[in-house]
């Protein structure tokens, strides 16, 4: 049970968004001694992507900036259960990215080399080696897109996503931050180029600092301060099957087939694919997604034909042009920070995102780790191109 608080008249920091990133930010701010902090969540914590994602963690990205950042996140995840005293069911079971063409294979080989150079454990496997680890996979040349090889990333895995949300929320509360559910930020007031207060459905509170940590809703919140950033929101769908015998001990992703899957401790297969191709704020699930998923997954794993689909759902993803986040102070408005652009891949970033955002707000300046994710990189043409390593959801 959460404590419900009255809104105070004033907070040093208002965090908009009660997802894993917002709550992690509150937690790490509190660790830095900044505790007069409110997290404003329009619905309930975990309502957004943080409660809807498929919880795949990995750091085998493509660029140096990306690899370092996600690797820091993974190492924070490593000790998180102990630190927050909450079982997060982190299972480092290894992560396959399959390639189905010569071009894809060469991309994977490059990623393996980049990863290794930065100390991230990743290597290339040929189909026979894959088959040894995934005995049920079809590596014959019958499918339309036969398996040519895979990038294997042993530290990758899955975690219990709700647990991460709850654990950060409890951690932040214990240290003094206040979490306000059912509190929607309706406006942000700026005076003399400086943030002065936020207007919510429960009243107005004054503050010196506002951090927008709303992922799929980023454009909407930025609108309130007349800032336009290159976020485009797309729905992403996922499904979970009925429990099946323990069968899959790794995360499997196929870029070409646009699918991925993993198996939870309960035996359910958690599955997803690429984003819906149209920008949209609706979170509805479609039959088209089910159909294409079923067709593609059966090409890889024909044994799954009898597995029944239990439930499907969708969430919103804030895509950026280079598939990397924006974590940045906004120069035009003193005290306003943006943390967004988490697309289909941001859950794994929650700890590093919260940690660095807290540092940024505490010091008024982005730490080195997240400098590359400044909002004006798009005008300065310093993109952090992660599309190749992040295009299929997860």
């Amino acid at each position: 049970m959460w404590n419900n608080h009255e809104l105070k008249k004033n907070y040093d920091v208002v965090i908009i968004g009660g997802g894993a990133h917002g709550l992690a930010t509150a937690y790490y701010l509190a660790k830095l001694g900044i505790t007069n902090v409110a997290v404003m969540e329009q619905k309930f914590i975990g309502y957004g992507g943080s409660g809807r994602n498929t919880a795949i963690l990995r750091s085998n990205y493509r660029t140096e900036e990306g690899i370092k950042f996600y690797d820091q996140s993974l190492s924070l995840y490593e000790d998180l259960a102990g630190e927050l005293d909450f079982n997060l069911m982190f299972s480092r079971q290894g992560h396959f990215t399959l390639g189905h063409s010569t071009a894809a294979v060469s991309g994977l080989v490059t990623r393996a080399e980049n990863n290794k150079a930065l100390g991230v454990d990743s290597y290339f496997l040929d189909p026979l080696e894959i088959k040894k680890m995934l005995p049920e996979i079809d590596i014959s040349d019958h499918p339309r897109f036969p398996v040519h090889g895979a990038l294997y990333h042993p530290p990758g895995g899955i975690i219990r996503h709700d647990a991460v949300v709850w654990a950060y929320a409890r951690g932040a509360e214990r240290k003094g931050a206040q979490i306000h559910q059912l509190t929607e930020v309706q406006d942000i007031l700026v005076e003399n180029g400086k943030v002065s207060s936020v207007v919510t459905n429960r009243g107005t509170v004054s503050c010196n600092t506002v951090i927008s940590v709303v992922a799929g809703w980023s454009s909407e919140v930025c609108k309130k301060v007349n800032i336009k950033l290159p976020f485009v929101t797309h729905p992403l769908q996922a499904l979970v099957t009925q429990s099946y015998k323990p069968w899959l001990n790794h995360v499997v992703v196929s870029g070409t087939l646009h699918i991925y899957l993993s198996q939870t401790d309960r035996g359910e297969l958690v599955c997803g694919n690429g984003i819906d191709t149209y920008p949209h704020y609706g979170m509805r699930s479609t039959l088209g997604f089910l159909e294409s998923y079923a067709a593609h997954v059966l090409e890889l794993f024909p044994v799954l034909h009898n597995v029944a689909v239990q439930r499907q759902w969708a969430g919103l993803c804030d895509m950026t042009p280079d598939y990397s986040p924006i974590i940045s102070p906004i120069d035009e408005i003193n005290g306003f920070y943006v943390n967004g652009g988490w697309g289909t891949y941001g859950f794994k970033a929650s700890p590093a995102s919260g940690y660095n955002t807290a540092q940024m707000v505490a010091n008024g300046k982005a730490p080195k780790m997240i400098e590359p994710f400044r909002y004006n990189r798009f005008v300065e043409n310093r993109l952090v191109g992660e599309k190749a390593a992040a295009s299929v959801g997860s």
Partner: protein
Amino acid sequence: MEIIVPIKQVPDVALNIKVKDGAVIEEGLSYVISSWDETALEAALQITEDIGGEVTLLTIGPEKAAESLRKGLAMGAHKAIHVKYYDAKQTDSFAYAKILQKVLEGREYDLILAGRQSQDTDAGLTAPMLAEFLDLPQVTNIIRFSNVSNQNMTLYRKGDHATEVLEMELPGVVTVHDTLNEPRLASMRGIMMAKKKPLEEIELEAIGITSEMSGLEGSMTEVLHYDKPESRKEGKNFEGDEKDTVKQALDLLISEAKFLV
């Protein structure tokens, strides 16, 4: 056994439903197969698995109703008929039953298996009306069936005071109570195969349904407006030792609500 299962695509009533200015707000609704119809489909699938035959789904609805047909096909139905009906609003059970009659005239079937009511209107009128229009016997609200053959079946109907066991000669119309079974979920293969199963599309004009026979004109009743039910007035809650709270609640029950007086 040839079984027709009429299904209706309806808003998911498990979700929040809002009204404004006397109408249900469309935005945010999510559409599903009416759950009673899923029970009927499951029963039909079990029968054909048992004694052979085919299950044909039949829906009257707009373009997007095809999704429900495909879901039913993914569950295992063999084929489907989609009667394209673009403006289903203000169509009552009578008009639906008339259209269904027209669709089924001249077709071969042994059994029409339907839900006891549809989840949106909760009216429960269409299937028995259809039975009358087709001059077929009806058994509604069944909780069990047995001895199914191509000629007849035994049906257990939940009546008001007893379970009535009836023997019906086919063809006939049966509606199901939802304790009858637990509808199956579609498997991966089922979902994939559904796309390849026959889905017949019929335009209303093609079966002789004119504008006077559909929509408000073809209906005998009309909905004037929709409202939220009056919310109950705020209750009183008691927390603490049950010895005290039960007494407090009972005192008020007696003084305010005239309980046992």
